[in-house]
């Protein structure tokens, strides 16, 4: 699919990744507009169903960005988030999807550059993987209807 611009949902912890995104903005470091940020009080608040709903609503990729391991503001929310991400990755694999469409990423509040680089790298990865299998089916149907 040419000119594919993926839709990416990033669940960002208020105490690290969200602040890092802010930092990237303050430093005028640009990152792809494909990434739609959802601020959460802690990645431990991100439930498996939130990630699944993002995919159901058409996200091509999702990542959860939390504090560095051992640095969670609420002690172990980021560890819980990692387990949940792994659980949903298993569901995606069972469905025949690439598990790389979902990732857990860790960073601190001061890592503005890392936030921008991560957003860029993840967007590139999803571009390589192509649109979500849901969209491929819908596009095929659309083409069949037209022809």
């Amino acid at each position: 699919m040419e000119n594919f611009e993926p839709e990416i949902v990033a669940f960002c912890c208020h105490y690290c990744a969200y602040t890092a995104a802010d930092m990237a903005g303050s430093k005028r470091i640009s990152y792809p507009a494909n990434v739609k940020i959802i601020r959460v009080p802690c990645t431990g608040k991100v439930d498996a169903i939130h990630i699944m709903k993002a995919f159901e609503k058409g996200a091509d990729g999702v990542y959860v960005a939390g504090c560095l391991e051992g640095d969670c503001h609420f002690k172990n929310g980021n560890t819980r988030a990692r387990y949940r991400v792994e659980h949903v990755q298993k569901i995606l694999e069972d469905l025949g999807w690439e598990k790389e469409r979902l990732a857990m990423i860790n960073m601190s509040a001061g890592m503005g550059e890392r936030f921008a680089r991560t957003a860029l790298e993840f967007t590139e990865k999803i571009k390589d993987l192509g649109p979500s299998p849901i969209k491929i089916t819908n596009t095929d149907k659309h083409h069949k209807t037209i022809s």
Partner: protein
Amino acid sequence: MITAEQKPLNEIIDYISPYDRILLVGCNECVTVCAAGGRKEVGLLASAINLHCLQQGRTIEIKEITLERQCDPEYVEELVSEIDRADAILSMACGCGVQSIAERYKEMPVFPAVNTKFMGASISQGIWAERCQGCGDCLLGITGGICPVARCSKHLLNGPCGGTSNGMCEIAPDVDCAWCLIWERLKALGMEKRYEEIMEAKDFRPAGGGGPRKIVREDLSL
């Protein structure tokens, strides 16, 4: 509690593939506690089935309901108002719940979404282990509160066998030898004498050997 684990997704999808309207029913009891079939798991499974169907280019209608208890007719009755709007029921309860629904709604195909495992206790967050086999004649009073029927791999009543090694069972390095645990516990309680009493062969009829079991309490029945 009764423990369960979700069935492989492809098995569940195979069951429901001929149907367009699914009633997905969870249970608020044991399967909620062991995170196999509570409200949360119902939501996740519905979402996974939806993703599968979207990928196949077909639409499916999934109605999510979680009953207080699927093994009680009073609660199963609550599905009456939804049953006409469904082609099949997918139950996330243990085998008792699935059968309660099947018995009440005879015209409706009912499929299990979990594999019922065993009667177990929570060891720590996310870990459950078998603790009771429902033998119908509890021995815990003479074995220091540790069950040889459920926890000895051979269900020995006068153990341990030669397969015990440093307190562990020969079947796997992470399985405790139940008889080693029993001895240590009796010793700690100063009840070593109990260990020396030979237990007679157990009557396994109350354990299910006498056919399907039933409890009848006439003082409670209406």
